[in-house]
């Protein structure tokens, strides 16, 4: 068997271990990576890799960005910042038709600017926004669809765990990826709100107008959002201004969130311990996957599979956009079965060399990639955000998935616009 075929067999093996043996993703990749290197280069090499790669992967300074941003996200998730955000958005646009759903999207977008995960936003809005929408007779379809979809913005709008992971695996600047994610995040927010506006224009009964609020109340609602604005400016401003690195930004963000929690009187001993536990567990979970991914990447590198793939695609002599469309389609399908971290770590070693060989900008692709992964969070059968929302609210999954359809289409439009106008993502990075 030639090396490339061994590489391909390895990829299939990981999929089989994941789907049919529900093996932990990190261990599945490490196991197949070890077996592959053993087959191709023998015991000495394979033992060498499993003995040194885990340490070398973890003891690499830029990796520290991951646990620190996780830490920041967990702290923010344990405060009332998200509720205050929703309250402000609700008071400003809640009186419009579909306004409560639009307020949810807006709050999710701003909340995403201080957290890096999609689950946090979904859980929060499931708790805060859904009861309000139900109170004003919103249809469960649009209410749940908008929460599950808007929640995904957590991994696109910086600080984003998806972009950090992509940057670490491809050796691209996490700082540039963060800055590149800003305007696409804004674009997606507008598209999701537009989707709600169009839906409620045709079917007003699914999203009736909420209560009117006096201008004074609107202005005073903004007072409670100062900490969110401050955290966002602190983290992104620091990176954009070159004051600190993305890794340091994680620590500054976590520290800033801690200070805010402390001075607003929300920090108890129990909350402090809960925050530390959750951040520690999440970090350990992500790092086992990353260790597995790096062992698997070594194997794929030795097998030369990614290069063989590039050669095959070059032989077809089709437009690079056809290949790109194929990759997007592949990710939409993969996203139906894998969750974010698995999809990122498992596919990037194979797909990234193809993207670079086709001449696409790696920073731009990082943003597109995270967007497509976001779509995986809301598509059946494994739509994580839909599962989370269904689990906590009791709304049937089919209702949520039905509600997601228009928002899914909006995400496709976002990808289309970013493909035609890549500058939406890139122009800010050029000013760095």
């Amino acid at each position, binding site marked *: 068997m030639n090396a490339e075929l061994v590489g391909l067999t390895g990829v299939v093996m990981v999929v089989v271990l994941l789907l049919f*043996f529900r*093996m932990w993703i990190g261990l599945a990749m490490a196991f197949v990576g070890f077996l592959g290197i053993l087959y191709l280069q023998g015991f000495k090499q394979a033992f060498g890799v*499993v003995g*040194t790669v*885990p340490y070398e992967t973890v003891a690499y*300074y830029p*990796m520290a960005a991951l646990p620190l941003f996780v830490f920041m996200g967990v702290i923010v998730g344990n405060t009332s910042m998200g509720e205050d955000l929703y309250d402000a958005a609700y008071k400003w646009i809640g009186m419009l038709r579909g306004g409560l759903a639009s307020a949810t999207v807006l709050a999710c977008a701003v909340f995403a600017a201080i957290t890096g995960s999609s689950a946090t936003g979904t859980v929060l809005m499931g708790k805060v926004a859904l009861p309000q929408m139900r109170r004003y007779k919103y249809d469960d379809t649009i209410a749940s669809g908008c929460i599950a979809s808007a929640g995904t913005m957590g991994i696109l709008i910086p600080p984003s765990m998806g972009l950090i992971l992509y940057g670490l695996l491809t050796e691209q600047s996490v700082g540039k990826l963060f800055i590149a994610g800003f305007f696409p995040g804004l674009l997606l927010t507008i598209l999701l709100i537009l989707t709600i506006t169009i839906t409620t224009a045709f079917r007003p009964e699914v999203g009736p107008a909420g209560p009117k609020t006096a201008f004074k109340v609107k202005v005073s609602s903004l007072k409670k959002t100062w900490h969110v604005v401050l955290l966002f400016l602190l983290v992104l401003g620091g990176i954009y201004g070159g004051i600190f690195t993305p890794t*340091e930004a994680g*620590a500054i963000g976590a520290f800033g969130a801690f200070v805010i929690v402390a001075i607003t009187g929300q920090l108890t001993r129990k909350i402090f311990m809960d925050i530390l536990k959750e951040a520690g567990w999440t970090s350990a*979970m992500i790092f086992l996957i990353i260790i597995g991914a790096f062992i698997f990447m070594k194997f794929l590198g030795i097998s030369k599979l990614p290069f063989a793939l590039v050669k095959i695609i070059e032989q077809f002599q089709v437009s690079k956009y056809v290949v790109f469309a194929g990759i997007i389609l592949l990710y939409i399908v993969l996203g139906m079965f894998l969750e974010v971290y698995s999809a990122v770590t498992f596919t990037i070693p194979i797909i990234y060399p193809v993207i670079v060989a086709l001449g696409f900008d790696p920073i731009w692709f990082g943003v597109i990639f995270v967007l497509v992964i976001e779509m995986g969070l809301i598509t059946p059968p494994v739509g994580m955000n839909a599962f989370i929302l269904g689990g906590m609210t009791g709304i049937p999954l089919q209702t949520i998935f039905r509600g997601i359809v228009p928002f899914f289409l909006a995400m496709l439009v976002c990808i289309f616009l970013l493909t035609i106008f890549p500058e939406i993502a890139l122009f800010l990075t050029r000013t760095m």
Partner: protein
Amino acid sequence: MKIIDAIPRIAGLVAMGVLFLMMSLTVADVFLRAALSKPIIGATEITEQMMVAMVFLGLGWCALQGKQIRVDLFVSRYSPGKQRVIDLITYGVGLILVAMMCWRTFMATLTVQQLGITCSYIEVPKFPFYALAAFGWAVLFVAMASLFVKRIKDGAER
């Protein structure tokens, strides 16, 4: 079983303390650099070694909490007996893999010690941190062994 589960939990608590210290060190470094132009010497390398402690010591507790990601799409549709067999096989494979990683990291520790490899700036020997990584794998092994035994008992109770 409670005593065995305590090992990953204690290691995990240490890992969480390290995470907090890591944040504090970085913030102090940024502040001292920005405000006084006096950064903490070797902060980057210290952070790298703290990462080793935080990640590897946290693996076991994370596993015990059931936080590791697995795709439960098809297996959850199998009969309980079949699911148990599959879980035991994957835990078994995982145990062998983790034991091997622990052993190889320990061997790497000895090599690093013999070669006298140190952190380039702060000149602290690297082998204790390799040893910590090996210990982390051992803790994960203990946690997985505990899960393995619990899964066997699950089936026996049925």
